[in-house]
Structure formats: structure tokens, C-alpha cells
């Protein structure tokens, strides 16, 4: 084998090998292929994947954390996505997966978030609940992409166009004439209003003067309030308020003592009241008996003869006293020896 031929062989072989290796390495680098096992896999199930394709980024709180590594049809109408997530990345608590359009230009991404990060969309939440499993498989759902939103916007625009057509129909020549007349009337009205305003401008000046004075009064009151506040501040700073508080505390303490004494008196009064009640009931019994003529006192109260006898006794006693006064020797004999 000649040296030239050997050189040819080497050059061609080296060129082919180097270019092939560089191309393969470049493709793997661009595709971010995991050669060193630096990723872990997460399985997601969803009803639809929207526009998500292999290699689309997986994003957690806006930061790229991996990529979509597999998409396959599952059983019972599910689609199963296999996400390759960097090993150093920890998923949120109770993670759910949203498949969303990343821009207007057909890029999609897989957003791993938690319950708080979900948009307030009832259908979306229902889809996530439906896709939820008890195992390690995450629940996923597709957010409406820009195309759907624009189609909705297109429908809204169509409705607006219909409304504007109806307005156009309603706004015919007659309506235009009436509108023109209304504008003319409004112009007259505004002119009269201007005249009135001009006439009332003096009143307005007076009112504004009063308002100014009122404002000055308010300012003075505000100044007084400020001074009062400063006094309160100064009294607070001199300790008067502290003294008032301490006096209040001692007064409250004495009030508590008085309250306890009053409570004791009240207890005594309660006992006295019980005794009084008993005495009253007994007296009531005595009076009842007296009224019924029982006993000596009852007879005395209820029998008129006692009164009559007593009265005659008093009369006789009075006559006796008079007789004694008149004839003392008749009754009194003083003898010595």
C-alpha cells in the first residue's frame, strides 16, 4: 500500500468519523438528551395534549425544569405524557400539570403547578379532578390555546358586528333628524344655562365667600383641636394622666371594698328580712285571732262591754277623786300613835 493511498484512507476516514461524531453530539446537545441519567421521569395523564410535542419544555414557576420525553395514547380515552425532570428539581406539593400555549407562535409548554397556581376555570378544575389518580401519575389538563381564544374573540366580534348592524338599522334618517333637533335644543338649553349662570354668578360669589369663611372657621377649629391635642400630649408627658389613673385605681379599689361591705349588709338584711317576715306572719296570726275574738285581747277588742265598764269605772273613779278632794277626811285619817 503506497503512502499516498494510506494518506487518502486516513484523511477520508478521519473526515467521516469526525463529522459523524460532531453531528451526533451536536444533535444530542440541541435535543438536550439525558446521557448521564440526570433526570427523573414523571407520568401525567390527560384527556388531550393540545399542541404539546416531544421536546417541549417542562416549566415549574416559570423556570425550565425538564422536557416532554414521551406522548402515548392510554386506555379509556387518556393520553399519557412522560416528562423528564431534572433530578435537583422538587415538584410542588400536590402537583397538577397544565398544558398551555407558551406564545402566539405555536410553542407549547408543560406547566407543573399546585392548587394555588390554577386559574379560576371551573372546567379546567373539573378536568383535573377527573384525571386525578391515587398513584404517582399526575393529573393534567389543557388550557385553551390562543387559537381557541381568538375563535371566541371572533365570535364576540361577530356579535358586535350584528349589534352594530342593528344600531345602523335603528339609526335611520328619521332618527338622524330627531337627533339633529335634539342637538339644536341642547344648544339653546346650554345658552340659557349660560345666561342663568351669569346672572347667578354674584350669588355664587357670596356663597363662595361664605364657604371661604366657613373653611377658615374649620381651620381655626382644627387649630384648636391641634392645641388641645398638644395639651393632652403635654399632660401625658407631665404625668398628670398617670396620677389620674392611679387615683382611679385607688377609687376602684375602695369601691370594691364598699361593694363587699354592701354585699355583707345585704346578707344581714336578708336575714333580718326573714326574721321580720316570720314576725309579721306571727303578728298576722295574732291579729287574726284577735279579730276572731280569741283570747283575752281579742275579747277586749271585740267585746264592747269592757269599754262600757271601763268608761263607767273611769266616771266613777273621777267622782271618787272629786269626792276625795272634797272630803278628804272621809277617806284619809292620819293618826299619829
Amino acid at each position, binding site marked *: 500500500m503506497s503512502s499516498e493511498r494510506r494518506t487518502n484512507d486516513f484523511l477520508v476516514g478521519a*473526515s467521516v468519523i469526525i*463529522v459523524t461524531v460532531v453531528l451526533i453530539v451536536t444533535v444530542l446537545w440541541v435535543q438536550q438528551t439525558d446521557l448521564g441519567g440526570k433526570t427523573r421521569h414523571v407520568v401525567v395523564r390527560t384527556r388531550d395534549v393540545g399542541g404539546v410535542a416531544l421536546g417541549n419544555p417542562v416549566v415549574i414557576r416559570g423556570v425550565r425544569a425538564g422536557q416532554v420525553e414521551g406522548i402515548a395514547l392510554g386506555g379509556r380515552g387518556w393520553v399519557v405524557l412522560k416528562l423528564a425532570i431534572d433530578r435537583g428539581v422538587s415538584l410542588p406539593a400536590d402537583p397538577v400539570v397544565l398544558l398551555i400555549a407558551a406564545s402566539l407562535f405555536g410553542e407549547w409548554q408543560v406547566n407543573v403547578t399546585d392548587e394555588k397556581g390554577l386559574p379560576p376555570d371551573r372546567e379546567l378544575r373539573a378536568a383535573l379532578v377527573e384525571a386525578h389518580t391515587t398513584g404517582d401519575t399526575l393529573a393534567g389538563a389543557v388550557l385553551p390555546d390562543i387559537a381557541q381564544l381568538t375563535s371566541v374573540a371572533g365570535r364576540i366580534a361577530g356579535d358586535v358586528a350584528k349589534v352594530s348592524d342593528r344600531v345602523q338599522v335603528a339609526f335611520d334618517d328619521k332618527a338622524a333628524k330627531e337627533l339633529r333637533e335634539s342637538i339644536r335644543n341642547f344648544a339653546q338649553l346650554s345658552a340659557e344655562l349660560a345666561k342663568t349662570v351669569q346672572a347667578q354668578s354674584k350669588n355664587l360669589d357670596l356663597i363662595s365667600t361664605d364657604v371661604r369663611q366657613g373653611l377658615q372657621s374649620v381651620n381655626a377649629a382644627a387649630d384648636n383641636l391641634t392645641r388641645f391635642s398638644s395639651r393632652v400630649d403635654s399632660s401625658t408627658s407631665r404625668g398628670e394622666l398617670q396620677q389620674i389613673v392611679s387615683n382611679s385605681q385607688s377609687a376602684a379599689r375602695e369601691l370594691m371594698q364598699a361593694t363587699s361591705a354592701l354585699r355583707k349588709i345585704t346578707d344581714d338584711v336578708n336575714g333580718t328580712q326573714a326574721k321580720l317576715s316570720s314576725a309579721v306572719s306571727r303578728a298576722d296570726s295574732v291579729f287574726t285571732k284577735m279579730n276572731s275574738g280569741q283570747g283575752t285581747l281579742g275579747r277586749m277588742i271585740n267585746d264592747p262591754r269592757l269599754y262600757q265598764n271601763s268608761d263607767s269605772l273611769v266616771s266613777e273613779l273621777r267622782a271618787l277623786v272629786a269626792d276625795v278632794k272634797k272630803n278628804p277626811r272621809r277617806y284619809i285619817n292620819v293618826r299619829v300613835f
Partner: protein
Amino acid sequence: MALVGVSVSAARSAKPSRVVHAVTALGQGVRESISGVGQGARFVVDVIRATRDTSSWMPMFTLHARTLGVGSLPIGIFIAIFTGIVLALLASYSVGDIVPPYFVGTLVQKTVTLELAPVLTGLALAGRVGANIAAELGTMRVTEQIDALETLTFDPMSYLVVPRVLAATMMFPVVVGVAMLVGVTSGWLAAIGLLDVTTPQFLKGVRIFFVDFDVRYGLVKAASFGAAVALIGCRAGLTTSGGAQGVGRNATRAVVISAVMILVLDAFWAVVWLTGRTLR
């Protein structure tokens, strides 16, 4: 009356001869127009048959691979450098205001990998390789070296054509692969240096829609371009006649046909592989 009868019969006999002549002329034109296709197809079949004679073409393979492939790397790199730069600027100029800046990376990667690296490099190599082969073999033909080889029982197909065709088929993808790498790299550098695009943005654009199919598609196209250019050049060289003038004429013809064939094959592969296919 007899004279009249003779003239009528002569007229009757003349009419079929004109029709036959016209039909014959039409057939001849059709045959001549498609005979090139038939001869080319027969040539390809002969080349395929000649590949069995490995002892004839194998020693010559690396020589031609070096000449046609390794020797073409500088021109491929040169073309790719400027293609990448121009593409980055074009992308920014065309859609820079309506798409995010990272789409410069997407456009450069997609365009270079799928289309420009294979086609521009193929066209450049059609001029260099096709003309080289056609002129070399044409000169051998007009100087009767090929006749001498046949006299010495060497099969010109296996000794001259097969190593060139195989070398071109194998080395065109190598040159195009290098052109892809250089084109994207030069676009990257142009985006960083001349546009307000950062490296992460450019790489995001490159990665966001990249699929390895892009590279495979470009390399397969390049291989088909290499085979076509080498076959056309070899056939043009082997059919050369008329001295130096004939060599020049056939070399030119080889370049023109190769360039056209590259575009035809480009459309063919696009129809075959890209119809109904999307990025998803």
C-alpha cells in the same frame, strides 16, 4: 380519363405516405427526447452491476473520496459561513418586529439544516465535482485512454465510474454536515454580534423546534445530490466526443444538468418527506 385516373390514384398513394412520414417524425422526436432518460437509466443499471467488482473500484475509492469530498470541505465551509450570516440578518429584517428575537435561531437552524446547506453546497459541488468528473473522463475518452483500459480488460464502469459515484454519494453528506454546523454557528455569531440577540435566546430558538429529522432529511438529500452529480458527470465524460471542444461542452452540460437535477431532487424529497408532515 386514363390520365385523370392515374393522377387520382397517385394522389391516394401520396396521402398515406405523408401521414406515415408525420407519424414517423413524431415517433422519432419522442424517441430522441426520451432516449436520454433510457440511456441514463441503463447507465445507472450498469453502474449498479459494476459495484459487484469490488477489486476494481475499492482501491480507487479513497482517492476519489479525498478529491471529491475532503477537497470540497473548504468551499462548503465558505458557503455556509456567509449563508448563516445572511440568514440571521434576513430573519431579523423580515420578521424581527413581529416575532420574539429567539426566532432568529429557529429560522437559521431550520433553513440551514433543511434546505440551504444541502442545496447550496450541492450546487457548488455540482460545479466543482461534476465538471471535474466530466472533464477528467471526457479527456480520457477523447485521448482514447478509456479505449486502452477496455483493451486491457478493465471495465471502465467499475474502474472509473463506481468509485467516483460511491465517493460522491458518501462524501456529499459529510460536506453538507459540516456546512450545517458551520452555517448555524455563523448565524449564531452574526446574531450575537450584529443583532440584539443573546446566546440563550438563539439557543432557545434553535432548540424549540429542532427535531433530528431535520438533519437526517438534509443528509439524505445530500447523498442523493452526490450520486446524481457523479452519475451525470461520469455519463457526460464517457459520452464525450469531438476533442477538447467536446470535453468543454460536455463538462458544461454536466454542470447544468447536475444543477437542474439537484433542484428536481430537492422538490422530490420535499414531496416525499414533507407532504402532510408537520413539526408535531
